[in-house]
């Protein structure tokens, strides 16, 4: 059985918006990163789903790359968040405002 493709789109859009929402409201750096992950995965949903539709593997391959890159991104992110915590004793992204205007 196959669900209509539109549903996938709707789903991915939903996930994307959820992620964006998270980005906008969460102050903790970790949550921020997680939210971004959500958005990336939204993209992956599209890719995988439509790779089936289009009958080529490009989408799935790209999805894999996407996951890998997401991992790398998180790795860097965690590192930065660590030093952030070391310097500002906090991982609240809205605290680091020594530079502005």
């Amino acid at each position, binding site marked *: 059985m196959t669900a209509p493709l539109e549903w996938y789109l709707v789903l991915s859009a939903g996930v994307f918006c959820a992620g964006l929402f998270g*980005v*906008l409201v969460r*102050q903790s750096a970790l949550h921020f990163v997680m939210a971004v992950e959500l958005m990336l995965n939204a993209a992956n949903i599209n890719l995988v789903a439509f790779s089936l539709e289009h009958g080529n593997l490009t989408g799935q391959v790209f999805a894999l790359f996407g996951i890998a890159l997401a991992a790398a991104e998180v790795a860097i992110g965690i590192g930065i968040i660590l030093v952030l915590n070391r310097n500002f004793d906090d991982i609240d992204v*809205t605290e680091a*405002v*020594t*530079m*502005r*205007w």
Partner: protein
Amino acid sequence: MVDVFNVVEAIALVPLVSFLLVLALGNRMPKKGALSGIAATGFSLAISLLVVLDLATGGEVYHEELFTFVAGDGAGVELSFGLLVDPLAALMLTIVSLISFLVHIFSLGYMNDEGEIGLRRYYASLSLFTFSMLAFVYSDNLLMAFMFFELVGLCSFLLIGFWFREAGPPSAAKKAFLVTRFGDYFFLVGVVAVFATFGTTAFAGDHSFIVEATHVLEPDATGEMNTFLGLGEQAWITVVGLLVLGGVMGKSAQFPLHTWLPDAMEGPTPVSALIHAATMVAAGVYLVMRMYGFYALSPTALGVIALVGGFTAFFAATMALVKQELKQVLAYSTVSQYGYMMLALGGGGYVGAVFHLTTHAIFKALLFLGAGAVIIAMHHNENMWDMGGLKSRMPVTYWTFLFGSLALAGIFPFAGFWSKDEVLFETLQHALSGEPLLLVGYAFGLLAVVMTAFYTFRMVYLTFHGEPRTDTAASPEPIGWSMKFPLVVLGALSVVGGVLNMGVLKDFIGSENLFLKKWLEGKTISGELGPLSAEEYHHILESDFAAGYEVTELSPLGPGALALVLGLVGLGAAVALYRAPEPTPHMTKLGRIRTLLMNNYYLDEFQVWLATGVTAPLARAANKFDQSGIDGVVNGAGSVSMFTGERFRRIQTGIVTNYAALLSLGLVLLLLVFGFLGGWF
């Protein structure tokens, strides 16, 4: 004999050389350069006399282009320098160099012996002055005339402001230059207009602008000219004439531009003599004579000239009545006398004008130099009420001064009588044939005669007669030969000057003995004087396409007698009032009027007001507008940008979440816009 015309340029150039010499090494020269000046002017005088002699004995008019100033390259008009030595110019050259020569000599006593400093500057300026004036006199076109006209103005500025360490002279110098500059503005417009109208400004030659203009107006119009602003030909000629007249009125101190002349008394007295008698002031009138053929074409212009002249003659005389300083009286008399010349020119009395110019040059120079002698004697105190009784103490000065005064007052048989009479007579001649303007001018002239005689002898009596009223007057400083010599020469001349043209007696001596008339009509020279001759002028004056004057034949004796009587009346009045050991200041009886006259009708105040009360505020307003208005906009743009910048930086709040929000906002915005444009939904 070597042809004198080969060296005629030298008449002006030698003084120029002397100027350069004195300027370069004046302080190392004997008498601080006075001698070189004397030598130069003496040389000029000699040459001029030779020229006169030559012309009187059948020489030819000398007219030649010296060099090209701007070639014009075929496309534009050509600007050039040239020489024109006709009888008029020759006469004027002689007068100028003579007066200048004597003034130089006089200065030896007046400046050197007084131990003035800055003599190098003084003599350099004098030489330059002489050079400019001489060059002006023999220039053969209007532009060249204008250029040296201006230089004359410059020199008068330098000389009037000679004592620059005091407050008065610099201001007087500035005034003199500015007022004449104002006149010269119109003159320059006129020059440019002549260029644009006729394509040439030559005075003489077959295609001089004067000839062209005549040909244009003649019934069989053969000449060519452009007119502007949609004016007719005669109208445009009138306009041009009046424009040039502006310069004349400035330099010759005609109402209302006469105000600078009395102030110019701040300069050293010899300079005053030079300015008043022969150079600066004479330049204006001479210019009208130079292009008389042009003015003769326009009755309107002539009328204006006559009226201005007559009025000035009267107007200035009134002010001279009440002055207390010796030189002030003389100054106003100068203004008045030049008024006569203008009156004559306007009234068609070309010869009379030239005649009066000549005699006036002599006796006015004499009077000023005499006054200078008195001033030296009085230790630079000029107030006549502090003098008196100098007659016995400085006889030479007295007698010469007396002759001068008689000439000025127009008493028979002194020079002034003949010339002034000529002026009035010729004006009357044309006036009676229905020229109301001229009649008015003539009336003014007659009134002025009385007053002239009066103030002249008021001056004489206050200065020389009665008892000394101060110690200095009691024991005046003696003056040297260098001052006496010029006085004697001029004194003699002002006695006999009249023989030049005894117009009053022409019925007895016959008109062939009116030397000046013959001279100016070119009877003495070989070849035709053509459009430059007095005859031609009268011809034009009386032809209908031009001024259209008519001559009413009447005997000169009547008017002559009338003028003489009036003069004697004035003289008598003066004698009656001031012939006392201790004369009383009668003029105070005039009360209000006297104050008005003392203040020269407040004309100076009016002009000062024009400058400080009108122009200056205007300038300040413009400046304010410039600073706050225009520049305000410029700087305002700057501050606005700064403000915007300040706002824009604030967008960068530093909080990363806001960044994310703004970023997404921007994205959404783009999406919506293109969603609608692209019609996605």
